[in-house]
């Protein structure tokens, strides 16, 4: 479990992270979400004691990173996959990291196999593709078989196969009981990967909870209603305290009562319903709503800001296709 409490980090007069407190539970993937510039990377660097926070502390399973004698056994991190020496081979890179924490040598080939880099282990990293860099970064993070894993935008720049692979891998790691924190500015990606969300904007916490709670709370739900007697229905609903948003095609969105309540109300007045469907804001809408005051660089579109498009179906992106290609899911049992 990760506990961050009261974390504050200033760069000169700019406060990058402001009194940030959250916890990350083990056994699931937690998304660390925020717009670009929200302070995600700074927070992660402070957590790893790479940056000195002005206030606050981060503990991993109760202890600060520097209190562990072999930190890699507790925390694995992938901040920047390109942070490797290009003329070193993948295996030698891992050898140096393993030696510093006195990790068993056998573990090097183990993690290389786990991420599918065994065949290029002796090759210079400089010739690696971005996807291979990410795999090597993951191998480095897993070297100490740690309880906690921190990933900073691991999907950045990857092709869809690579994104799927890394997502599957993170979920696999969490299923082994590890604590997995993944930062991203892409909500749709996090919805597929994470169970919990820590959302920040401008360095401050916006919300913490499950993905579902975040969507419910931040953007809410409404009911889409069609009726041949829509005018009567709308006034009836308004009398009962509901908010009604009419559509051009004659249907209405009702905010307030749930579908059952609307149905009963309509039945009580003998009004005919043709459609009665609960709707939910998309993750993107929820995210934009939650962070709209916290975007570092606000874009001011002249004129009206468009409301969430009505009738957009509840958007949780489609589930990933099953693996089995070259980016196949990790072999079971390898990392424990």
């Amino acid at each position: 479990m990760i506990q961050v409490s009261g974390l504050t980090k200033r760069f000169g007069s700019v406060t990058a992270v402001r009194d940030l407190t959250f916890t990350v539970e083990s056994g699931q993937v937690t998304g660390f979400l925020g717009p670009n510039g929200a302070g995600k990377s700074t927070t992660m660097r402070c957590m790893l004691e790479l940056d000195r926070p002005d206030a606050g502390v981060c503990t991993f399973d109760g202890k600060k990173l520097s209190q562990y004698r072999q930190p890699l056994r507790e925390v694995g991190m992938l901040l920047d996959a390109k942070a490797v020496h290009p003329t070193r081979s993948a295996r030698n890179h891992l050898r140096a990291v393993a030696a510093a924490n006195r990790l068993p040598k056998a573990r090097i080939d183990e993690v290389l196999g786990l991420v599918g880099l065994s065949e290029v282990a002796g090759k210079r990293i400089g010739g690696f593709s971005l996807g291979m860099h990410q795999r090597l970064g993951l191998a480095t993070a897993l070297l100490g078989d740690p309880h906690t894993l921190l990933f900073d935008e691991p999907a950045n720049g990857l092709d869809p196969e690579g994104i799927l692979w890394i997502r599957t891998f993170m979920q696999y790691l969490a299923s082994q009981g590890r604590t997995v924190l993944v930062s991203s500015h892409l909500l749709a990606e996090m919805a597929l990967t994470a169970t919990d969300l820590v959302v920040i904007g401008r360095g401050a916490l916006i919300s913490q909870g499950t993905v579902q709670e975040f969507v419910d709370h931040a953007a809410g739900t409404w009911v889409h209603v069609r009726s041949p007697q829509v005018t009567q229905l709308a006034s009836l609903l308004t009398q009962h305290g509901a908010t009604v948003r009419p559509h051009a095609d004659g249907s209405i969105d009702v905010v307030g009562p749930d579908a059952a309540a609307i149905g009963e109300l309509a039945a009580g007045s003998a009004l005919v319903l043709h459609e009665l469907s609960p709707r939910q804001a998309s993750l993107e809408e929820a995210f934009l709503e939650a962070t709209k005051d916290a975007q570092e660089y606000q874009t001011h579109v002249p004129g009206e800001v468009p409301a969430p498009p009505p009738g957009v179906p509840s958007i949780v992106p489609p589930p990933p296709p099953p693996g089995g290609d070259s980016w196949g899911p990790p072999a079971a049992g390898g990392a424990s």
Partner: protein
Amino acid sequence: MGPARRRGCLVIDLIRAEYIKIRTVRSTMIMLLLVVLLSVVPAVLIALLVSKQNLLTTEPRDRVQIALIGVQFSQVLVAVIAALVIAGEFRFGTIRTTFVTEPRRLRVLAAKLVTVLVLAAVVSALMVGISAGLTKLILDSRGVDFSFTAFGAGRLLYGTVLYSMFYAAMGLAIATLLRNAAASITLVIVLPLIVENVLFGIFSVLDHESWAKWLPFTAGAQITADTSGSSLTERFAPWTGYGYAWLWAVALLGLGAWLLQRRDA
């Protein structure tokens, strides 16, 4: 070895990691190869090509000095490697992995210091041995006396090794302060070879030549200097100068260590 003993992570493990890092990068290996060539080739060429007549006019100590010209010149490359031991990590971003592996940064710096000191000592001792040994073989065969025990020759031999260690420590200290590879390398090369010479020239013009003895590299180099027949007002005695030079190295390393802990990585 029991599990309890295996768990600890010591500075010796960090040193082992540093050696792996040095050995597994192409640039450092090329530079070490250059060190060998630059050390040995001049010594052999001089011993072979300089006329016997000219050689016989030199003092026995100077013959050892000639044999070590290449070694002393190639020390700059060892100091550059020492600088890259930390500046290279900042350049490629691997310093973050290193600092997560060992968040106590003083230990990281200590491991790097031990690493570059041992590297400098071993490389320099080998080069001194090989260059002087080959020179002796060649000169002996040409009938020119070459003695390791000539007056002052002993200090010249081990002093060369000691100076290389000091230079490497300065390289590491400079790079720890600057964190930038290009700037560190430039300074490591330019400080002893150009800056101190320019300052010496300025001091001469000002009629204060003796000030030059306070320059760190000038002082450190006294460990290999020929002190016979020179006054000690203009410069330090060998060990005094060398000890004084290390005060600079320790001060810069201390400042570097303090900044390393304070700065964001």
